[in-house]
């Protein structure tokens, strides 16, 4: 009690009236989360304003709910301005005083955000009290230019064999995850975050998961999974649930990017997942229509491309002079009925450095992750692959694409020559090898060893339907009996001659043991 009194007394003694005048406006009308404000003639675009409930009410009444309500100026007009209300719009009333805050929309950031769940304004929503973040940063800023960047060359392992082998992602890259609802888009992102636990602490990226327009139950489940698996030690969750105002959903990815940049500028690696940008686009469309901006294709405003390009351009690999940090972005886009040629999907495809395309048909066939290898691509390619992975994955993508062609052909012809049959069998086995359950990302050395076994014929005698079971045994066997080999691959990031020899010996022993047991 005494400490509270002392603190209040300290604050009272320290208070000095603000010098000079401040610019204020009044709410002319409000509705649908938008406020029309008279005055504020000098306010800047994207500046924050404060709706002050204490101004024209007795203090006791105003302090019943003292939480400040902020607004974001988005339209500057001849006779006033329009702002989106970043809070409970029902508390805004006509004639309410609006104060300029003199700063663009900013959030507090800092290392103390790690392990926390916050909203896009940087306020904690996990019930663990204040975040303690001190540095204030504007959430809108220009992306780094060409001079400040370095080529993307360091891999960011997802722990998903199919992705790391065929669609490698580099630190600083922007890789889109696209597909219909329920095809496993979020799972890929979640597994990628979980897999960072396998990275050495020194090079482990700080992960930021931005949930936009998601059900709160889904976000809670994800946070619980991160906590249970120890991933919250290096993860920050920014949540703008479906029940949040459109403005908050629109801001969420920018808040995520700002936090990511903070770590990038410290020379660290950061990974930000935007789940998902289609919902952000819908929120922005709603805001734009309410702000009476002219609608364009699919009623999206004219600057919808710029909305996503300026966000995703902030992902970067910085040059050594700038500290060498990186910000990798994994935006997610939800398609309707597999239509990748819709407005938002084509926009984001053209902005990103590749896409992982997930298909409902493959998902229904039981393929996990349901990646369509044919149209999935990473434009950074093998530059962001370790030598080990490059060596083992070689032609998998091509062989799988050929297998898909043959598989389609096989449906019409039962009479196949031996070579075709062999190719189909091999394709089936490889498909099975690349199948992976959700939530079990593999360390990259294990991925490399398993793919090595598959591509070098060690699993050729196993029927496709038995591959999953054999693979599990192989993983156990390698962890138990080939620990040194795995460590050698992890440390050197390649499969050297002597490592390869040792690995082959171990695999031969495994195959022999396997033959004896069957």
């Amino acid at each position, binding site marked *: 009690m005494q400490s509270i009194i002392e603190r209040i007394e300290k604050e009272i003694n320290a208070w000095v009236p603000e010098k000079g005048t401040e610019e204020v406006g*009044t709410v002319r009308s409000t509705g649908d989360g938008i406020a029309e404000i008279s005055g504020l*003639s000098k306010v800047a675009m994207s500046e924050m304003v404060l709706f002050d409930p204490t101004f024209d009410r007795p203090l006791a009444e105003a302090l019943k709910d003292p939480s400040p309500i902020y607004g974001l100026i988005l339209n500057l007009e001849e006779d006033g301005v329009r702002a989106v209300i970043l809070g409970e719009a029902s508390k805004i009333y006509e004639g309410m*005083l609006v104060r300029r805050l003199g700063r663009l929309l900013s959030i507090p950031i800092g290392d103390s955000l790690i392990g926390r769940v916050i909203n896009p304004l940087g306020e904690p929503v996990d019930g663990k009290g204040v975040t303690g973040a001190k540095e204030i940063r504007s959430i809108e800023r220009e992306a780094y230019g060409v001079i400040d960047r370095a080529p993307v060359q360091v891999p960011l392992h997802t722990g998903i064999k199919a992705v790391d082998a065929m669609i490698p992602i580099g630190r600083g890259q922007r890789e889109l995850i696209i597909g219909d609802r329920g095809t496993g888009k979020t799972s890929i992102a979640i597994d990628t975050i979980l897999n960072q636990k396998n990275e050495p602490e020194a090079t482990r990226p700080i992960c930021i998961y931005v949930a936009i327009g998601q059900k709160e139950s889904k976000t809670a489940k994800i946070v619980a999974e991160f906590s249970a698996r120890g991933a919250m030690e290096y993860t920050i969750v920014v949540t703008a649930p479906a029940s949040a105002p459109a403005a908050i959903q629109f801001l969420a990815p920018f808040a995520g990017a700002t936090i990511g940049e903070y770590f990038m500028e410290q020379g660290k690696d950061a990974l930000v997942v935007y789940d998902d940008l289609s919902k952000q686009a819908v929120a922005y469309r709603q805001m734009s229509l309410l702000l009476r901006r002219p609608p364009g294709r699919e009623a999206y405003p004219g600057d919808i491309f710029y909305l996503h390009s300026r966000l995703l351009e902030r992902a970067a690999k910085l040059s050594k002079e700038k500290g060498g940090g990186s910000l990798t972005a994994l935006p997610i886009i939800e398609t309707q009925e597999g239509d990748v040629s819709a407005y938002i999907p084509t926009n984001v495809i053209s902005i990103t450095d590749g896409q992982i395309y997930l298909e409902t048909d493959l998902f229904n066939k039981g393929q996990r992750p349901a990646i369509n290898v044919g149209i999935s691509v990473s434009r950074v390619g093998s530059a962001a692959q370790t030598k080990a992975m490059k060596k083992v994955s070689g032609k998998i993508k091509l062989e799988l694409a050929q297998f898909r062609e043959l598989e389609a052909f096989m449906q019409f012809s039962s009479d196949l020559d031996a070579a075709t049959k062999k190719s189909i069998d091999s394709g089936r086995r490889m498909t099975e090898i690349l199948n992976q359950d959700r939530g079990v990302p593999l360390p990259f050395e294990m991925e490399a060893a398993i793919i090595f076994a598959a591509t070098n014929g060690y699993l050729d005698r196993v029927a496709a339907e038995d591959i999953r079971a054999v693979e599990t045994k192989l993983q156990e066997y390698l962890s138990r009996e080939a620990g040194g080999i795995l460590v050698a691959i992890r440390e050197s990031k390649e499969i050297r001659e002597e490592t390869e020899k040792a690995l082959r010996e171990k695999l031969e022993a495994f195959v022999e043991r396997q033959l004896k047991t069957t």
Partner: protein
Amino acid sequence: MIDTYTRLLEAAAETGSAEVAQVAVTKLMMHLQSSGRVNMLPQIVRELRKVAAYRHTLRPRVEVASQKEAPEALSAAAEFGIHAPEATINPSLIRGWRAQENGRLIDHSAKHALAHIYQKVTV
């Protein structure tokens, strides 16, 4: 159209001359009659009322918590260029004063200070 007519009348009123305003109204009436738009008149009046109400909010005003603070508040506000003819009493300010004019605000009231401190302490 209503906006345009309202602005014309506003401009005439701004001259401060009753004669100019009278001429503007007469000419507008003639124009509305000749173009068959007399039914716009109530809307023009409504717009003018809105403008007048808005202007009223922009007028210089000084509020004080108690009458005894009025002289000091008026002179302090004048130093900032806000010349209000008189101060109105607003007990909700608790102590101190605040002055407003044309979108500018000087808030030296205890209410503002206490709200500020409350937010700082409770966050």
